[in-house]
């Protein structure tokens, strides 16, 4: 194995020597903690003996852990390393990390089990095999020592890289070669008891941080390959429009311009990673390519989609709210009957616009097609999917395609499954031009052509009983997905409404999948992010109509659900939530479950008489069962709050004439530092067998908590976003 590693390593070194700028893995020496290199690689640079696909141990005790997942700021490298190191039992300072080889993963029948990084699943769902890899290696090291010392494996202790039995000791490094040959009769169990963990649960500095303060961290957009040319691309401004003509002659004399390449959609293929009609201008620098593209006359045909607008979709959605839809779960005809007969009914309609990922790293990909090998540098949340995508586009064997794992300048669900057409674009252009090509979408193209969070409309109606609590809840929601698909990621148009925990005797939810030509995609906390807002604002409406304090209402309605009680009681204790603040000030609460984690938020706001909103504080309380790295977990919770506030307060993509019209940061606004509230995160962990995700759940309860706080500050009930477009003045 070592031999094979070295020969592949020298291949990469040779290509670097020939070309200069090509990137490869290297590691910072001698740091006090585990390390990761600043540069990505498609193949291993580890030195030593491979114990299994995840673990290489060198004679000097250095342990290289291979990370099959993507680092997009969520601390993925560090979490994976901690999970393996916990079981392997090795000194954190002796650990190096490198990204796993996605080509190998596919070649060896999905050797790393899962390479996709999405859905807050990394710790939550991948811990069994990652910890298992560490445990297996540890037991094989013990077995190797046991055989050498003539003792039973159970007599050998493995701790911090040292094996001990009686007065015999040896290092992992000494026994690595023998351990690689050991076959275990039975793979060991992993330790799931947090009380017995020595590494997990303790805060660790993220390994990628040092490379993100000196400009050395390499993202896909930073790829530089010898001989590389650059392409700027424009797809039909109205998605899925047809390219009629373009006039390359008008720009071909401009400096550096090499070619214009038309890209055509494949009829019937409108999935996430499929190509749309587009035209690329290729030049020797990207700025020249982009400038020439802007000057090139292009004609499109848009068809019916040109008529679509945000307002039109809202109107269509509200009509659907009066029509029967797909029933989620069991139909309860009594819900509507009880409401019809009730003396007290609360009803409200909600609107939420399209939102976009707006990763700070604009959409890009570099592909180098050569006769016997294809290399891919793409900001994807799944390198193995990028390989399959490129192989499909080029009609080549995936075994000849190599994906270089790069740091991602944001993920947020938008690159899920390697599913962006940009990688196909780069593959196609490189094939046609015969050179490595970096395709970069200008920011306007990025916002206009990204796969968006679906626009949604909902209507909720409840009957309130004599005790002020609801006796029936009838809800409908519509979202506008590409061609009316039922599911975006794991979510449907009931997520965040249908799965509320409250024990209401009669409930009926129906959903509509309305059609749009706008590509749809998962978006940090899919479903819960749109409709969690709807249900948690409506909860306040129901509670207040029934004379209940909104927090007491939630506590009452989750009686018998210990995890919800734990989260809500912690929120009550820590937030000081109250409803009697002077006008102009308000607090609001909300609680939403997503990715196996219950997250509650309490927002404190002030609103001036002229309607100026200031969000002072957001407190979030979460139950994910347990927390692996409290440092990274808190960061993720803070980030998710900011993410959802961006959409709810300042965001909102506007569709006019079938196309988005606010496509840069002057018109599509992200939250800025002077708007950001103080965010406090508290983990109220229930333990047990629960492994919830933490990359997304604190987002969804944040906007409804703020909307509910605005109600107390102004008396105005908020049922749509973004808040920036609402009149919040009061007297």
């Amino acid at each position, binding site marked *: 194995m070592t031999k094979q590693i070295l020969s592949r390593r020298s291949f990469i070194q040779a290509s670097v020597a020939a070309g200069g700028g090509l990137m490869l893995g290297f590691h910072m020496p001698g740091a006090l903690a585990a390390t990761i290199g600043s540069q990505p690689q498609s193949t291993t640079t580890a030195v030593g003996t491979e114990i299994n696909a995840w673990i290489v141990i060198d004679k000097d005790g250095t342990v290289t852990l291979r990370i099959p997942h993507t680092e997009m700021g969520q601390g993925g490298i560090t979490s994976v390393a901690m999970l393996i190191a916990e079981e392997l039992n090795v000194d954190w300072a002796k650990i190096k990390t490198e990204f796993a080889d996605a080509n190998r993963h596919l070649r060896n029948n999905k050797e790393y089990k899962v390479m996709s990084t999405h859905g807050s699943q990394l710790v939550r769902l991948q811990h069994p095999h990652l910890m298992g890899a560490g445990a297996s290696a540890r037991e094989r090291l013990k077995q190797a020592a046991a055989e050498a010392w003539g003792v039973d494996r159970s007599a050998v202790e493995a701790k911090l890289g040292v094996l001990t039995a009686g007065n015999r000791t040896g290092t992992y490094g000494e026994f690595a070669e023998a351990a690689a040959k050991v076959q275990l009769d039975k793979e060991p169990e992993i330790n799931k008891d947090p009380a017995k963990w020595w590494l997990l649960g303790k805060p660790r500095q993220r390994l990628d941080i040092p490379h993100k303060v000196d400009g050395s961290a390499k993202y896909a957009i930073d790829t530089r390959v010898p001989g590389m040319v650059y392409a700027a691309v424009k797809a039909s401004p109205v998605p899925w429009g047809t390219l009629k003509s373009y006039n390359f002659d008008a720009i071909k004399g401009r400096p550096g311009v090499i070619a214009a390449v038309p890209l055509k959609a494949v009829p019937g293929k409108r999935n996430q990673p499929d190509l749309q009609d587009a035209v690329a201008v290729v030049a020797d620098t990207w700025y020249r390519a982009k400038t020439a593209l802007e000057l090139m006359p292009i004609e499109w045909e848009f068809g019916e989609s040109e008529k679509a607008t945000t307002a039109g979709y809202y109107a269509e959605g509200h009509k659907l709210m009066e029509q029967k839809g797909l029933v989620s779960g069991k139909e309860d005809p009594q819900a509507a009957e009880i409401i019809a007969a009730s003396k007290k009914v609360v009803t409200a309609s909600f609107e939420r616009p399209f939102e976009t990922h707006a990763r700070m790293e604009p959409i890009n990909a570099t592909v180098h097609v050569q006769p016997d090998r294809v290399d891919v540098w793409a900001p994807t949340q799944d390198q193995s999917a990028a390989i399959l995508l490129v192989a499909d586009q080029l009609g080549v064997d995936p075994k000849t395609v190599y994906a270089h794992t790069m740091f991602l300048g944001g993920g947020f669900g938008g690159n899920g499954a390697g599913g962006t057409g940009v990688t196909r674009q780069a593959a196609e252009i490189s094939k046609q031009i015969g050179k490595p090509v970096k395709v970069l979408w200008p920011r306007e193209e990025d916002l206009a052509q990204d796969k968006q969070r679906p626009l949604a409309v909902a209507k909720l109606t409840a009957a309130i009983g004599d005790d002020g609590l609801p006796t029936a809840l009838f809800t409908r929601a519509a979202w506008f997905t590409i061609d009316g698909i039922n599911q975006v990621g794991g979510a449907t148009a009931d997520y965040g409404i249908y799965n509320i925990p409250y024990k209401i005797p009669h409930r009926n939810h129906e959903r509509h999948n309305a059609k749009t030509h706008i590509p749809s995609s998962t978006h940090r906390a899919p479903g819960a992010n749109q409709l969690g807002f709807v249900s948690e604002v409506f909860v306040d409406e129901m509670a207040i109509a029934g004379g209940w304090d909104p927090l007491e209402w939630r506590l009452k309605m989750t009686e018998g659900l210990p995890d919800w009680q734990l989260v809500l009681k912690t929120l009550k204790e820590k937030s000081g939530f109250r409803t009697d603040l002077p006008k102009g000030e308000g607090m609001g609460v909300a609680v939403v479950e997503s990715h196996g984690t219950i997250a509650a938020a309490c927002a404190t706001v002030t609103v001036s008489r002229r309607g100026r909103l200031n969000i002072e504080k957001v407190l979030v309380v979460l139950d994910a069962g347990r927390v692996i790295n409290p440092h990274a977990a808190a960061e993720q919770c803070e980030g998710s709050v900011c993410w959802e506030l961006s959409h709810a307060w300042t965001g909102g993509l506007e569709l006019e004439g079938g196309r988005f019209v606010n496509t840069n940061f002057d018109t599509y606004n992200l939250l800025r530092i002077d708007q950001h509230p*103080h965010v406090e995160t508290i983990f109220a962990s229930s333990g047990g067998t629960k492994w919830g995700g933490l990359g997304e759940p604190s987002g969804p309860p944040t906007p409804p908590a703020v909307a509910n706080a605005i109600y107390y500050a102004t008396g105005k009930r908020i049922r749509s976003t973004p808040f920036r477009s609402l009149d919040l003045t009061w007297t």
Partner: protein
Amino acid sequence: MQLTLNINNKPETVDVEPETPLLWVLRDNIGLTGTKYGCGIARCGACTIHVDGQAMKACQLPASAAVGKRITTIEGLSGNSSHPVQQAWVEIGVPQCGYCQSGQIMAAAALIAKRKNPTLPEIEAAMADNLCRCGTYQRIVQAIRRASEIAQA
């Protein structure tokens, strides 16, 4: 047109149209990719660099306008991550995805060079042009305060 620029105390000669934004000269002609493209309209701050010590957005600065000036990028801020802002950024663990952080660090470094102990409104005013999609704002404020301490220690 041949232009000679002083970048990180090193002369660099490039052949570009004079109106080419400095951002693209840095990234594509010279290979200093630490400075990032985010919007191209000076509204996100990912391309923030120092020109004669002042924080500026490289995406809207024609390369020809930078001739004869002292240009500093993230790669040249300290060369070894020893700048107080870089030290504070590591200590507090500010970056998440990290893409905007070169710009954040350059903006913060220009601020604390001017104001020893910036107040919260001063920090917010100096950093309001720099977007972070991951939401690291709270830690940025914390780290700027820490950087001021380190700078004065």
